[in-house]
Structures are given as structure tokens and as C-alpha cells.
């Protein structure tokens, strides 16, 4: 029997759910593997009571999200996060860099009391255990299919732990650091195929900190290339500001 799947969005722009529709040719094959019971982007109905796999997009920004995640974890045998927001808190977590009083005053002219139940934006795994993850902004459809396939087979999570430089080298890109430009590939989790550098854009760290990254060595590398080492973490905040929160 095909596993029952729900796809749920927390705080995000739904970009990764949209990206899933971009699977195009293979979408029917993928849908054939699962019993898709609920897809927030495409369904108007309610979440079912029972399901086997919960796919979660988006950052945790409210108490309501926390409750939902706890329910998902209790019901689903497998929880899979997709996209930077769910994986690292993503861009939403930048809010953590600003005093909430100042931020709310600027937007609403009032203090944080306008949004009750709000919490500092953070990743899903700050609230519940995550079994499989597809990092990135947006997700790569091939990686999504592969991770889903691993989940369906019950294979171990194989989210890469190494930085990006190696795959970037295989694409024969000229190193941004050598060109005097800030690139975060040397500490960012690999697995994206170095798409951005290959399109002549430095890495912005959307896949999060590589668990085996050597930050101190990266700062030293910045210095030796004539770059400001404080830029490393400042730029890294774009997708990873919540790492302070989760520590």
C-alpha cells in the first residue's frame, strides 16, 4: 500500500511547494509512489487524521506552528523538511537580527502585542525531530525525488555534511574568493551541484552550515584573500540567522 503523505506549509512563500510542481515529466511517477492525502498548496480540504509521511515547508514562527508540528510528529512515521525556511529558519529568521519592538513599530506602528503567539522564527528541527531533509532555496527537484525515494525505502538520511567547494571545482568555476568576492561555499552544505557559482553567482549559504565546516579556517581564508572575515557570518545570516537561536 502506498504511504499516505501530507504536505504542510508553515511560514514561507510556498516557493518549494511550487518547485514540486516543476517536477513536470516525473511528477506523475512520483505521485504514483505515494497516496497524497493533503497538499496545502493544492488542496482546499482539511488535513486527514492519519498519515505516514509529513512533508513540511516553511519556518516555525508561531505557537500554532509548534502545536501543528507536534501533532505531525505524533502521527507521521516520517517527517521530511523541504527548503531553507524549514531547514534553517531561512530568510524569515533574519527577523532574529532585529529587536522585535523596533521591527513591529516600524511595520505596524505598534509593539509585538499585535501578533500574539509569535515566536522567534526558527527551523523545524528546533521543535521536533526531522528524519529527512531537502535543504536549499528553493529545493532541487532531483534531490527531492531522491530523498523521497530514500524515505520510501526506509534508507538512512544522507544529507551531505561537507562544504560545497569540491563540487564547484568539478564544474570548473573560477573561485570567487580568488576574484576578491565573498562566497560562502567553503562552509555551506553541499548537495546543490554548485548551481549558483556555475551561474556566476557566489554561494549565499541557502543550504545551511555544513556540519563539518571549519569556520575558523574559513575566516582565515577570507583574510588571506583580502576579504573582511566578519563578512562571512554577516552574509551567512541571510539564510542562517536562526542558528544563534537554536544553539
Amino acid at each position: 500500500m502506498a504511504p499516505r503523505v501530507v504536505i504542510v506549509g508553515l511560514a514561507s512563500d510556498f516557493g518549494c511547494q511550487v518547485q514540486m510542481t516543476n517536477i513536470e515529466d516525473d511528477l506523475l511517477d512520483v505521485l504514483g509512489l505515494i497516496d497524497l492525502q493533503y497538499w496545502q498548496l493544492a488542496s482546499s480540504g482539511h488535513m486527514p487524521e492519519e498519515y505516514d509521511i509529513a512533508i513540511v515547508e516553511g519556518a516555525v514562527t508561531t505557537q500554532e506552528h509548534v502545536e501543528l508540528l507536534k501533532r505531525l510528529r505524533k502521527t507521521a512515521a516520517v517527517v521530511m523538511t523541504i527548503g531553507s525556511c524549514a531547514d534553517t529558519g531561512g530568510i524569515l529568521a533574519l527577523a532574529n537580527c532585529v529587536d522585535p519592538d523596533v521591527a513591529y513599530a516600524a511595520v505596524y506602528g505598534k509593539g509585538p502585542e499585535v501578533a500574539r503567539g509569535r515566536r522567534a522564527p526558527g527551523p523545524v528541527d528546533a521543535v521536533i525531530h526531522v528524519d529527512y531533509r531537502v535543504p536549499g532555496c528553493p529545493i532541487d527537484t532531483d534531490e527531492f525525488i531522491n530523498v523521497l525515494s530514500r524515505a520510501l525505502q526506509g534508507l538512512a538520511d544522507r544529507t551531505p555534511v561537507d562544504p560545497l567547494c569540491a563540487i564547484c571545482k568539478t564544474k570548473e568555476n573560477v573561485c570567487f574568493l580568488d576574484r576578491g568576492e565573498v562566497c560562502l561555499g567553503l562552509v555551506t552544505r553541499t548537495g546543490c551541484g554548485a548551481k549558483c557559482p556555475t551561474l556566476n553567482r557566489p554561494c549565499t549559504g541557502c543550504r545551511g552550515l555544513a556540519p563539518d565546516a571549519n569556520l575558523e579556517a574559513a575566516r582565515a581564508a577570507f583574510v588571506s584573500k583580502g576579504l573582511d572575515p566578519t563578512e562571512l557570518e554577516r552574509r551567512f545570516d541571510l539564510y542562517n540567522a536562526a542558528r544563534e537561536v537554536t544553539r
Partner: protein
Amino acid sequence: MSAAHTQERQMSSDGNPYRPWPARITSILDLTEKEKLFELRIIDPEIREAFQFHAGQFVEVSIFGVGEAPISISSAPSKQGFIELCVRNAGDVTGALHKKRCGDVVGLRGPLGRGFPFEAMKGNDVLLVAGGLGIAPLKSLINHIHDERHEFGKVTIMYGARNPSEVLFRYQFDMWRHRDDFNLMLTVDESDDAWDGEVGLVTKLFEKIDVDPDNTYGAVCGPPVMYEFVIAEMRKKNMDVDKIYMSFERRMKCGIGKCGHCGVGHQYACIDGPVFSYWEAMNLQGAI
């Protein structure tokens, strides 16, 4: 390297050493909660015929869609047509293998690696020491010695497991308990009420044996932490560094000396080992 310690390399018949050959699971035996014993038969008769191995060698088991895992052969080379693999459910491939049923087909490559120097061991006493899953490759050697028992002097087998429920191949050892041509010594770290064997680390068993150092070969296999202590006991008995053999577990991926994963010191465990003499192992930086 002695001539007896070499082995001819075998190739798949189409010359692609990466290509697994279909093998049928002919029997599955639950050994413990985590370990099962699989009996496999290569389907192609020519490949099956060509599959001649030495105790201590391994195969790469392939489950398409999941990958490959190196597994040492547990049956004796004298058992023709079938091979036995004792597999712990510890990763993706072994997990998928544990889900297979009798009659299912898996992929097989091998035999691979360098085994124990069986020919050189003949005419000598043998002291075999296994810890935990380390009994898997040693069982091949034990059974081979059994099949040619008259070629060997005293045969001592020491086997330590964490507790009685983790003792592998108990059915065979129970059968051998009363034989006087095998000195079989089982020990567990933690015993239970039903256990009537030894309790304690396998090294403790050395108190109970006499070794004729000039005429004894040692074979050791177990978890990495075990080697240092077992070797120390063997050296106390004055056994020669080049008559003690040990099998190493490393991350053997291609199994044929190309992919680089199983590097140990300046050697590769997959083609230079997995069986090394203690002298060789001493020369492998970071091995023990």
C-alpha cells in the same frame, strides 16, 4: 608475502569487476536479534563454478537501488556451490538484505581480498580468537580446519560475546562442546541464568591455555578495540609476530583497490587485506 598467502584474482566473466552477479537466497537463519545467516547460490553455473575462495575473503553484496556492502564469507571453501554470510543489520544494504526472503535474488561480487594463510597454517597448532561479529570470517576458517582436521595440531577457539543472546552460531558450538579435538572456549561479558560458560573478556581465557609458540598460528577477528589486548596476550605466550593473523574491517566500497575508501596505513584493506599478519599490521600506521 608467502606463496601460501597469495590468491589468484577472480574476474567476472565479462571482464567488468564492478558488475554483480545474481545470486539466490537459498536459506535464512535468524541467529540473534541483529544477525541473520544467509545462504546464497550464484545463479549462473559458470560463475558459480569459478567462485573458489579462501577463508577470510569477502564478497560485495549488492541490492540495486540501495547499494553494496562488503560481507565476509562464513562458510568453508570446502562447501561447494553455496556460500554463507553472517550479516548484522547495521546499515542501508544490510537492512535491506534483512528484509529479503528465501528465494529472493541479490547481487554478488567476489571473492575479494586476501584471506588467511591456510596452507601455511597446516601442520601447526591453531589459536583462533573472535569477539562479537568477528566470528563471521573466522567461522569460515574454523570450518575449513574442521574439514581438514588431520592436517592440524591442537585447535583452540576462543569466542567472546557481550551476552549469551549475542553468541553467534550457538547451534554449531553446542554441537562441538564435547569434542576433544576442538578446545572450544566461549565467554560472555554479562551472563544470564542459563549461561554455564565463562564470564569475562576473551583475554581472560588465555590463563587457561598453553601455547607452543614455535608451532602455533593465531587468527584474530573482532571489534577494533579488541586487537591490542588479544595480541598482547598472544605475545605473552611468545607467539611470533608473523604467525598472528588478523582481519580488519574498513569501509570497503569497490572491493578491488580502486575507490580508496578502505585505506589503512599505506595499504588498502580490500586487496592487501582484509587479513594481515601482525607484523604487517604493526607497519600499518593507525591500524591498531
